[in-house]
Each structure stands twice: as C-alpha cells, then as structure tokens.
C-alpha cells in the first residue's frame, strides 16, 4: 500500500476563500478521515470487543495502525478560514483571534459587539 498523501488530494481545488498549502493539507486530511471513518470504527469495535478471538483483535489492531496517517482524526487541526492560522481559532466563528477582532469591529459578525461592563 502506497503511503503517498497525494491519494487524498482532489484533482481540482474544491475550496474557496483563503487558500494555503497547510490549509489544503488539513482539508485533505478531513476528507480522508470522512472517507475512512466507518472502516476505522469497525476496526475499533473489533479491538474493543473482548468476546472476539484474540487473533482477530490483534490483526484489527495491526490493520488500524497500518492505515494512512491522514485517516486519523488526531491529524485534523482547526485552522482559521480567513487566514489559515492554526493558533487560537474560535470554533464558533472558525476564525483566528485577530481575524475575529477585525471582522467584529467591521460588523461582519452578526450580534458581536464591543463589550464593556
């Protein structure tokens, strides 16, 4: 089995907005995970099920660990949609803290206002 990450890359860029190599890579990982998630869950079930023969469980473990890295959920990192930054990204807005501030001040985020109390 080839370990090339290019197998998860779409032939044509299917993203709009800000685009970045790292952002595309993360997007590919997300797609790979979505594609292989049922298989991963099935293997995980086989591993956890203590009533199955030990051999099957060990083989399932091996197979799970041999799957491509891109199919792992831990590889996925939330990135800012507007700038591609991976740090301090708000899940509510999918924005980096700086982009959040700029857009909030520009009034592009509905309901978000400057607070003082």
């Amino acid at each position: 089995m080839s370990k090339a990450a290019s197998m998860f890359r779409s032939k044509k860029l299917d993203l709009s907005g800000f685009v970045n190599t790292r952002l595309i890579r993360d997007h590919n990982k997300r797609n790979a995970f979505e594609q292989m998630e049922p298989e991963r869950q099935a293997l995980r079930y086989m591993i956890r099920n203590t009533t199955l023969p030990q051999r099957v469980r060990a083989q399932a473990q091996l197979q799970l660990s041999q799957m491509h890295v891109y199919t792992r959920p831990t590889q996925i990192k939330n990135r800012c949609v507007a700038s591609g930054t991976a740090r301090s990204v708000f899940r509510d807005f999918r924005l980096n803290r700086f982009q959040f501030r700029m857009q909030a001040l520009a009034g592009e985020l509905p309901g978000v206002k400057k607070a003082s109390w």
Partner: protein
Amino acid sequence: MFSYTTRSAIGVGKRLRVPVPVRSLSSPSLPNAPSPEPATTTQAGPAPALATGSPDAEQPSEPRVKEWSQRLRALGEDTRLPRSVQAIYSRPLRRKAEYGLPVCDLQLRSYSVQNVEFFADFAIRAAYYLNLPASGPVPLPRIVERWTVPRSNFVHKKSQENFERITLRRLIQIKDGNPQAVQAWLAFLRKHAFYGVGMKANVWEHDSLDVAKSMDASLPEVEKTLRPHLEQFGQRHDNSADRSIFDVLDSDRFAERKNL
C-alpha cells in the same frame, strides 16, 4: 380589505369636489386615522383629476374648510376599517385554552430586540387566526457570550479588547391545538421568516392508548416507503466475494508485515 378603504376614498372625492389635494385636507381632520387610509387615498386616483377639474372653485373653498373637516370627521366616525385591520393597532387577540395541554414550544432567538419582539407578535396573531391557543411570548434568559482578544501580538498582551454577543430568546407555547394546525402554523412562520430571527420548535403529539394497533396497521405503508432506501442497504456485491473476514485480514495488508 383594501378594496373597502379605496371605495370609501373614492366616495369622499366625488362628494367633496375639493381643489385642494385630498391628502392635505384629510390628514389634519382625522388625527387618529390609521396610516393605511391616507396612503390609499393618494393611490386611489381621483385626487389629481379633481384638482385639475375645478380650478375656479379655489376661492370659496377656504371658508368651507371647517365644514369639510366636520364632514370628514363624521365620515371617520361612521365608517371604520375592517376588524382584522383594526386589530393590528391593538394588542394581539388570543384564544382561550380549554385543557391547557402543551402541544408545541416555539423558541425565537435573535440578537436584536425589535426583530424578535415583532416576530413573536406576528406569530401570536397568526396562531389566533389558525384557532390555536398561544401563551407568551415568555422572555427566556439571555445568552451572553463574551470573548477577550489581545489587540495585537502576544508581546502586547496587556492591551486586550472585549467582545460580546447577546442572544435574546422568546418562548411561545401552543396549547391543545390540532397537530395539523400546528404544522400549518409552523410552515406559515417559516414561509414568512423574519430576518435575523431564528426559530426552534418542539412539537409533541399525543395519541390514544391503542397506539400499537394503529402502528401495526400503518406498517405496510411504512415498509413501502422504506423499500427504496433499504434496497440500497447491505453488502456490496463486488465486496462480498467468497472470503471470510479471516481471509481478508490475512491476505491484503498483512502480507508484507508477515514476511518480516
């Protein structure tokens, strides 16, 4: 209902024969007249025709203004708007709940007070005309979310900025209404959804104790609707070769591993 108001306006024009535009006369004379009336008068059409029709009557019109206003006031007292239009100027009407059994909880959410208040009012009026007893709008606790963000790089961490988003909520409860009417109400609200107002509805349906029987009776129909979906479900033919799971696990991916 608008045809009624326009008809009355035309009648006024015919009887009055005023050179002065009708609107300028009628608006001071009817101070408590609802807003749709003058709007329809200007649209009605006879006003400009009258203005051009009798230019020489401009002089005697002035002493008669008082009379006109009196007559117009009398007109305002005699005629009235349709009840449904009048109801808009007062608080929403409500049906009385007979049993008080909750059927539907509608939660409205918005970031602005005007929007959510307006739409809650609209929803209650709509419920009245659908013969649904509605209670509310109950103001639920606001959801306040706050974020604190550094203004620039981490070096200047001491200078931060606070942002907040306050979600306002209103709850409208429908009591012992017909489930179909409730569905119609919800569909109507979704059709006339107001900008910046989100809706969330919990609908409860009540059934008799013979639910199991009716469900059994409806089973063949449900199966018929499910068949196209279930046909898609199952193992793929190209996948179900005569191999057990052991063969799959032995062969494909572990061949290289075994050799090690």
